[in-house]
C-alpha cells in the first residue's frame, strides 16, 4: 500500500498556491488589460517567463537566493528565522512564481475581451473603479476565472523539477506526489508508483472534465 501523505501535501500545495495567485493575479491582470505602456510590456514579459523557462532555472536561482553562502540568504535566515529550502514555505514561493502566468493569462484575456462600454456604463452610473471590477467586470468573465483557477491548480499538482531541486524529499513537508512517484520508480517499486500515478491521472482528468463541462458553451475562453 502507499502512503497518503504525499497526496495530501500535493493538494495542500496546489490549494494554497491557487488561493494566493487568485488574489495576486486579479490586480495584475486588470492592470495588464489597460492601455499598453513600456513598463507594462516589460512586467508582462517577466510574469510570462515561467511558462517558457525550464523549472530547473527557477530551482537553481531559488537555491542560490536562499543559500546562507550569500548576504541575502543570511539576512533571510536571521530575520525570518526560517529556512526556505527544504520547507513547505519555500515550495509555496516556488509554486507561486512557477504558476503565475497560468492564473494571470486567462483573467487578462477575459478582461480584454469585454466591450469597453460595460466599464463606461458602470462609471457613468457613479460606480468606483473597485466596485466596477468586483460587481461588473469579474462576474462577466466567470469562465476565464474558472480557467485560471483550474489551470493553476492542475499545474501545481504537476510540478516536479523545482520540488526535486529545493525540496529535500521530507515526508509530510516537501515530499509531493510527483516526487513520490519518481522515488518509487527509481527504487523499482513499479506497483506503488502506479497507484500514485493513477490517482494523479484520475484527479487531473476530473479537473479538466469539470472545466470543459462548465465552459463548454462559451467559446470565448482563451489562454492568451
Amino acid at each position: 500500500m502507499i502512503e497518503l501523505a504525499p497526496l495530501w501535501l500535493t493538494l495542500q500545495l496546489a490549494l494554497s498556491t491557487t488561493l494566493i495567485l487568485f488574489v495576486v493575479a486579479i490586480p495584475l491582470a486588470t492592470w495588464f488589460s489597460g492601455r499598453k505602456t513600456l513598463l507594462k510590456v516589460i512586467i508582462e514579459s517577466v510574469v510570462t517567463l515561467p511558462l517558457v523557462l525550464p523549472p530547473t532555472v527557477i530551482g537553481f536561482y531559488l537555491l542560490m537566493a536562499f543559500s546562507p553562502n550569500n548576504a541575502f540568504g543570511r539576512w533571510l535566515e536571521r530575520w525570518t528565522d526560517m529556512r526556505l529550502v527544504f520547507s513547505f514555505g519555500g515550495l509555496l514561493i516556488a509554486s507561486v512564481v512557477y504558476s503565475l502566468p497560468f492564473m494571470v493569462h486567462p483573467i487578462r484575456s477575459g478582461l480584454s475581451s469585454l466591450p469597453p462600454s460595460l466599464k463606461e456604463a458602470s462609471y457613468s452610473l457613479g460606480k468606483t473603479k473597485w466596485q466596477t471590477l468586483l460587481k461588473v467586470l469579474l462576474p462577466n468573465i466567470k469562465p476565464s476565472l474558472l480557467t485560471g483557477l483550474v489551470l493553476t491548480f492542475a499545474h501545481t499538482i504537476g510540478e516536479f523539477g523545482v520540488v526535486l531541486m529545493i525540496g529535500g524529499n521530507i515526508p509530510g513537508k516537501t515530499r509531493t506526489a510527483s516526487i513520490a512517484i519518481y522515488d518509487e520508480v527509481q527504487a523499482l517499486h513499479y506497483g506503488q508508483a502506479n497507484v500514485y500515478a493513477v490517482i494523479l491521472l484520475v484527479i487531473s482528468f476530473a479537473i479538466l472534465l469539470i472545466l470543459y463541462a462548465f465552459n463548454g458553451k462559451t467559446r470565448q475562453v482563451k489562454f492568451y
Partner: protein
Amino acid sequence: MTRLLGIFLIGLLSCQPPRQEQLTLAVAANMQYTIQSLIRAFNKTDSTKIAVISGASGNLTQQILNGAPFDIFISAEKVYPRELARQGLTLTPPQVYARGQLVLWSARPGIEPGKDLQVLLGDNVQRIAIANPATAPYGHAAVSLLKKYALYDQVKPKLVTGESITQASQFIATQHADIGFTAKAVVMAAEMKGKGKWVELDVNDYPAIEQAAALLTYARHNEAAARKFYHFLYSEEAKAIYKQSGYLVP
C-alpha cells in the same frame, strides 16, 4: 516552405555524430570524480573515447532495466548489479572493485563533525543531509549507522534527502544543510578541497559498501574495448587510484 523544410532536414541529418569507438559508462554518483582519474590513466595507452553518465545506483539500475545504452555499470554496491545479472543483462558476474567509506561533513562555520555523532543532536544542527536510503547505498549506510547509535528516531525530523550522493553533497557544500553524510571520495575530490570539515566514520559501524561493477549486454556492439576497460578497473594501477581517492581496496 518545402525548401525551408529541406534545409532544416539537411541540417538535422548533418547533426548525426560520426560513428566511432566509444564506451558509455553508468557510474555511481560517489565515483564521479574518481572515474575521471581512471579514464585519464586508461587513455594514456588507449584512445577509446569514454562517456560517463552518473546518478544514484538505483536510478541507473532502473535505466539499464529499461534498455539504457550503457556498456559498463560501475555501481556503489553489489545488490543492483546482481539484480541485473539475475535478469540476464550482464556479460560478467558483478565483481567488487573497491569499498566505500562514509564521512560526516559540514561546511558551516562553528559545526564540528565528531565520530560520536553527538553533534547531530545540537540546536545549531537543524538540517542533516543524506542520500536517498532507498536508492543510494551511502544513504542506506548512513541510516544504518544512525540506527546503530540509537540516534535515528531523534534526528529523523532533521533529515533531508538528496536524490543521490551528489545532491546530498551539494546540500552540504552550499550550507543548505548544516551537516550531512557523504562518501569520502566526495570530500577528497579536488573540487571540494577546503570546504568545511569532515570526519571519517568507523567502517565497522555500518554495512560494508562493497562497490561492484559489471559488463552489460549492451557492450556486445563494442565488446573488445568494453572488456579492456572493465579489466582495467581491477588492475593495480586502478587500485592505486581508488586508494588515493578515498576508497579501501580489497
